[in-house]
């Protein structure tokens, strides 16, 4: 242990009260930082979880992000001739070579994927017609990527496997048609195909629009009905960690060419609002640490003033200016570090208390716990801010101490 550090420790230990006050300042700052940060980040996560769970983490569409260039522009990139009435080539929509592409996506770790064919059909029952979205799915795969299974109020996804002509509809639609489990509806596609489908399941997500317009059938049946044999126009992906979706999206897009949209991209405006919210929150809680830093500044300045004779004697003994500066910077580091550790303990205690708080939102039936975020990044942030404030507070007194001229002090004594 360097002698500078020993002197720093001695200074602090011999001045118990100001040292303690400084420590308490930093500790309270860090604890408050953590309590607020864990609450804000926790509620943010909670909010995002709701957002994320009810929509795919990543969707691969049978589209390109940028329109395919016209052959004429490829041939004459600098050509001045403008071609009018150019239309993209007619092609059968859908993801080409979807089996290999899906196999590639499924080979990536930490995710599950399901192929879907989405199209529009008109359902007719008892003289009533409704245009709905038909999702052709593979039930076993769909279970891995969607929470729809948990939202089933009657029947199940597996029932589709057992009944090739089965159809799953939302509660809203069922009410509209007066349909119940086992009812048979007629489905007509824009391709002109028509088929009788039997309701084998009813779901309720709580989102009225979704419950009235979304229906599910077997992929094979949907392909037949929409007259798109062996076609798939979407992959739906679900991740263990939703936050990797953005990176995986660009990887997939680069690899297979089709547009891959992550939930982060789909809700970019919301994410930027959350980012701003976090910035404001961290500015406010860091300001508390800056206030605590004044306590440290005061303590170290007082020590420098009281110890000006010691500084003179150390320098006359052969200590460098930077040795002296280090002594007082070390005091800042020590106060910051010990204060942060105390604050970390206090903050964790606060968080443990907060997580037990139960609240009953107005109108809700069941109580909920406050969402608390436990991620380590906020501890590092708190520690970082505390250390920067503490060392920052020590810089000026340390510089003043380093500048003390021994003769000036000695003359004053003589």
């Amino acid at each position, binding site marked *: 242990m360097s*002698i500078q550090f*020993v*002197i720093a420790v*001695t*200074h602090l*230990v*011999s001045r118990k009260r100001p040292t303690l006050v400084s420590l308490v300042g930093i500790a309270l700052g860090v604890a408050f930082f953590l309590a607020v940060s864990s609450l804000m980040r926790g509620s943010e996560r909670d909010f995002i979880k709701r957002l994320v769970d009810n929509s795919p983490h990543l969707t691969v569409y049978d589209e390109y992000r940028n329109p395919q260039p016209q052959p004429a522009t490829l041939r004459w990139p600098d050509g001045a001739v403008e071609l009018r009435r150019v239309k993209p080539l007619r092609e059968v929509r859908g993801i080409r070579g979807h089996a290999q592409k899906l196999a590639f996506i499924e080979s990536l770790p930490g995710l599950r994927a399901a192929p879907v064919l989405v199209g529009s059909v008109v359902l007719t029952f008892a003289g009533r017609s409704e245009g709905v979205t038909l999702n052709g799915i593979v039930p076993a795969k769909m279970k891995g990527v969607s929470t729809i299974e948990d939202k089933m109020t009657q029947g199940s996804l597996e029932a589709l496997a057992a009944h090739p002509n089965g159809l799953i509809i939302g509660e809203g639609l069922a009410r509209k048609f007066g349909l119940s489990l086992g009812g048979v509806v007629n489905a007509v596609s824009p391709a002109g195909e028509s088929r009788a489908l039997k309701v084998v399941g009813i779901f309720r997500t709580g989102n009225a629009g979704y419950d009235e317009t979304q229906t599910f059938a077997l992929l094979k049946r949907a392909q037949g009905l929409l007259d798109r044999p062996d076609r798939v126009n979407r992959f739906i992906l679900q991740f263990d960690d939703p936050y990797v979706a953005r990176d995986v999206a660009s990887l997939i897009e680069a690899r297979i060419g089709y547009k891959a949209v992550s939930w982060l991209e789909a809700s970019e405006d919301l994410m930027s609002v959350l980012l701003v919210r976090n910035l404001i929150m961290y500015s406010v809680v860091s300001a508390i640490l800056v206030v605590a830093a004044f306590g440290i500044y005061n303590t170290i300045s007082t020590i420098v003033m009281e110890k000006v*004779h*010691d500084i*003179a*004697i*150390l*320098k*006359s*003994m*052969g*200590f*460098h*200016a930077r*040795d002296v500066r280090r002594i007082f910077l070390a005091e800042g580091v020590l106060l910051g570090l010990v204060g942060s550790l105390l604050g970390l303990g206090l903050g964790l205690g606060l968080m443990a208390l907060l997580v037990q708080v139960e609240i009953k939102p107005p109108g809700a039936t069941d109580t909920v716990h406050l969402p608390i975020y436990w991620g380590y990044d906020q501890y590092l942030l708190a520690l970082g801010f505390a250390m920067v404030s503490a060392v920052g507070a020590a810089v000026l007194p340390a510089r003043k101490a380093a500048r003390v001229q*021994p*003769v000036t002090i*000695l*003359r004053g*004594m*003589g």
Partner: protein
Amino acid sequence: MNRGPLTPNPSPTRDEGSQWSGPILAAENLGRVLPGEVPVTLVQDVTLDIERGEFVAIMGPSGSGKSSLLYLLGLLDTPTSGRVWLDGRDTSRFGEDELAATRLENLGFVFQFHFLLAEFTVLDNVLLPMRRLGARPEEKARQRAADLLQQFGLGDQGHKRPHQLSGGQRQRVAIARALANDPPVVLADEPTGNLDSRASANVRQILHDLTRELGKTVVAVTHDLTFASAADRRIGIVDGLIAPDWRA
């Protein structure tokens, strides 16, 4: 008069092997003026040589510039004119770092007021310069500190804090600390100024013995005539100038 430093040193960075045999400490036209609206002259045109192993007393009326001269000789203050030679080296060429390093290894200070660090034990105070220099392992340094205290009759006081000692004891601790890194030169500013006659005699004897037994060079500012008469040489300072025929 054989004034080594005044004849230009042929090789300012001396070869490692060759030992400088001239004066250990020399002042060459040394002057110090405090700048200000009315500049104050502390020391004027002081030229003197101090030989190895010499015990020198600096005397003079109060306010004549004795302390100021000592600070210049001890490289604590920077002269406004002239220069200080230490062991044949021109210290006016030194930067901050080299000055500090030289004070650490080659110079020991003893002041009128003991100037010990109050939070440290007596032993730790003596250890301070050794720990800063880091030349001795901790064990060896502790042994040396204990030996020094023993030598000055403080063998059983090492664990005490400075405020638990008498003035004379503290001054002996300060001497032990000044000697910690075994510097060739010890500078003392009224080391007995605050002590009764018995403690004074003790400190005087110790400083005297340093020159005789350890070959140290001791330069001490003093008002004490008994102290001065024990010295090999007395230098009178009046109004910042050397006064050859000054008598207290």
